[in-house]
């Protein structure tokens, strides 16, 4: 008992000392972290939490944000949309956080977004997605279809041929991404020879593989989400489907090329704004720091890099605004020069859509599952929302738009 209370006292002492380092009036900046640490999506999202912890530790070691320490308030959202709603209310109302980093699946983002609007909070969505969210309460650091598909599909059509077959997860992400694929394939003179939507959680693809063989495409666009659907690669490999694949979501998120036996992902092409194989000084430094803190991390994926860079974006926003109020932060965004050098390249916030520009790397999985990068595209803008008529510096519709449901012309 004595030992216990003594160690409690010394722990308190450590806490006080740590607090003292930030001076007397350094009230912490609280960052809510709602990510899936269990359930079907955990595989791709545990790294995001670790990346945020790494960035927070670095920032605190270097004196915090504007002299204030960064404090993380973490909840495990369990890959469950209703948990997102519960915990989003909790961090905004009870924990009174200054900003929230939240969400993997688009379904979860759309589940929590009205709550962020209701409390006029600030949420970062650090994930690649189907695009179109025009909402002043959101900053999106992940890549969107115009960044990933307008680079990927012309490359695939040129190198492999014009006939395209899409298999996509059957929810808002897959449906809207598939719409983007249809449009960009048509713009580049290609033909859709087939399209199939797969319910989340489906793991048996024998018939789908046969449907693809019957349609004879030149390559397959895979927009599969979750660990169950990833079984497709093993089964397509075993059936010797042998078609090149293109994806905006695989490899960069679920590191399928590390989990499956070669050569099941041979000739998979993915446009990513980061994967750990990228051979640049910034990337190598990031991987080194990450593995030093989390030696058992199976893979450092694109969303981990986005989350890490997002903490630094937030730091810059708060320091330049000298405030954590959303209105002050948005004034800084409106200046249009908020940029950080992320592990994969420079990322700048676009004031109109509050999305982020990226260096897009084309990752090619070879037959031994190593990754090479045939090309990359610098400073690719998230242009679609701005061109379509979303301008958050003028109005805030808080809507998600799609190519077939664009912003109203006078909006």
């Amino acid at each position, binding site marked *: 008992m004595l030992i216990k209370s003594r160690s409690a006292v010394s722990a308190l002492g450590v806490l006080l000392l740590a607090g003292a380092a930030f001076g007397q009036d350094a009230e912490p900046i609280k960052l809510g972290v709602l990510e899936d640490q*269990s*359930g*079907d999506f*955990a*595989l791709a999202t*545990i790294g995001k939490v670790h990346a945020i912890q790494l960035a927070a530790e670095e920032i605190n070691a270097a004196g915090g944000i504007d002299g204030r320490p960064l404090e993380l308030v973490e909840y495990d959202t369990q890959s469950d949309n209703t948990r997102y709603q519960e915990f989003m209310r909790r961090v905004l109302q009870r924990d009174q956080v200054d900003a929230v980093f939240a969400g993997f699946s688009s379904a979860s983002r759309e589940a929590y977004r009205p709550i962020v609007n209701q409390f006029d909070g600030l949420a970062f969505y650090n994930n690649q997605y189907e695009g179109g969210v025009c909402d002043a309460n959101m900053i999106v650091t992940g890549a969107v279809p115009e960044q990933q598909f307008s680079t990927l599909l012309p490359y695939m059509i040129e190198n492999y041929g014009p006939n395209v077959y899409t298999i996509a997860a*059957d929810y808002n992400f897959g449906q809207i991404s598939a719409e983007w694929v249809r449009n960009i394939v048509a713009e580049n003179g290609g033909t859709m020879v087939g399209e*199939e*939507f*797969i*319910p989340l*959680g*489906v*793991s*048996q*693809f*024998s*018939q*789908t593989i*046969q*449907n693809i*063989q*019957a349609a004879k495409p030149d390559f397959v666009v895979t927009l599969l989400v979750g*660990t*169950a659907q*990833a*079984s497709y690669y*093993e*089964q397509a*490999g*075993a*059936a*010797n*489907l*042998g078609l090149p694949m293109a994806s905006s979501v695989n490899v960069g998120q679920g590191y399928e090329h*590390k*989990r*499956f*036996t070669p050569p*099941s992902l041979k000739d998979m092409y993915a446009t990513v704004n980061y994967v750990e194989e990228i051979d640049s000084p910034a990337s190598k430094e990031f991987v080194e720091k990450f593995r030093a803190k989390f030696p*058992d991390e*199976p893979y450092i994926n694109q969303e981990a890099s986005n989350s890490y860079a997002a903490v630094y974006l937030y730091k810059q926003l708060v320091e330049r605004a000298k405030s954590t109020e959303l209105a002050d932060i948005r004034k800084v965004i409106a200046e249009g020069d908020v940029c950080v050098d992320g592990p994969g390249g420079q990322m700048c916030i676009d004031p109109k859509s509050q999305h982020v520009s990226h260096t897009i790397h084309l990752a090619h999985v070879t037959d031994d599952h190593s990754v090479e990068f045939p090309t990359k595209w610098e400073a690719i803008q998230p242009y679609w929302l701005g061109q379509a008529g979303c301008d958050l510096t003028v109005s805030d519709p808080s809507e998600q738009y799609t190519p077939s449901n664009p912003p109203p012309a006078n909006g």
Partner: protein
Amino acid sequence: MDIFNLIFSFLYQFGDAFAFLVLSACGLAVIFGMMGVINLAHGEFIMCGAYVSTSAVHAGLPLPLAIVAGAVAAGIAGMIVELLVIRPLYQRPLDTIVATWGISMIVTQGTLIVLGPSMQGVGTPFGSFTMGGYSYSVYRVILMIAAIGTLALLWLMFTRTRFGLLSRATIQVPHVAEAMGVNTNLIYSVTFGLGAGLAGLAGGLYAPTMTLVPTMGASFMVEAFVTVVVGGADIFLGTAPAAAILGVIKAALTGWQGQLAGQIGLLIAVIIVIRILPRGISGKILKERA
């Protein structure tokens, strides 16, 4: 030739769906049919079989032995669960649902914490063969044979062995069986272990074709429950014909309109069956016999 290819490809897809339904359901059917326990941890026994067999392959065991090891490990785990959790709850069947659901969550999260979010697979063996413009995986044909073999072995076990006789007696009238000197506790324990072992067998057989994650069992659960609900309590009169009927529905609809249609078809079949045959196919057959 084209007709032949069409028939072959349909038979292959039917066999594939049938094998998945039979293998994922028979463990659940044994435990539910023989003991009345609805085992919501079924998926976790499947995961246990898959993880153990994959680890065994990584450790150098040949795949068939590794699959058997996976089944045995899941069976032993099942007997332990029966002893510790299920046995006190035989008089409270509804509570076993909650208890097994709790086990399922503990095992899933425990695996995530201890073994991490995924395990490196072993790759599907045996390659592929081509027929009429389509290429097929050889291993999937082996899965079909394994499904039929499993049913045959179970039938022999329940009708031709002393364990089968004792277990059927225990399930039918437990008190009389006990009075005749049958160790009913042992029979319950072995039966539960058999069900869990069958789940482990399914996990081991499908492990080379799937992504290995702590939640992998969940992707078997819909098919397993659909098959058991349609089939009813008897594994031979119920599970096997139910899997055959559902296999036809799933293969036909998925081939025609994609995976979504296949899933919808399975669920509509369940709704219709519950409406007109509340005790499933085997309930209907047994009632007519009686």
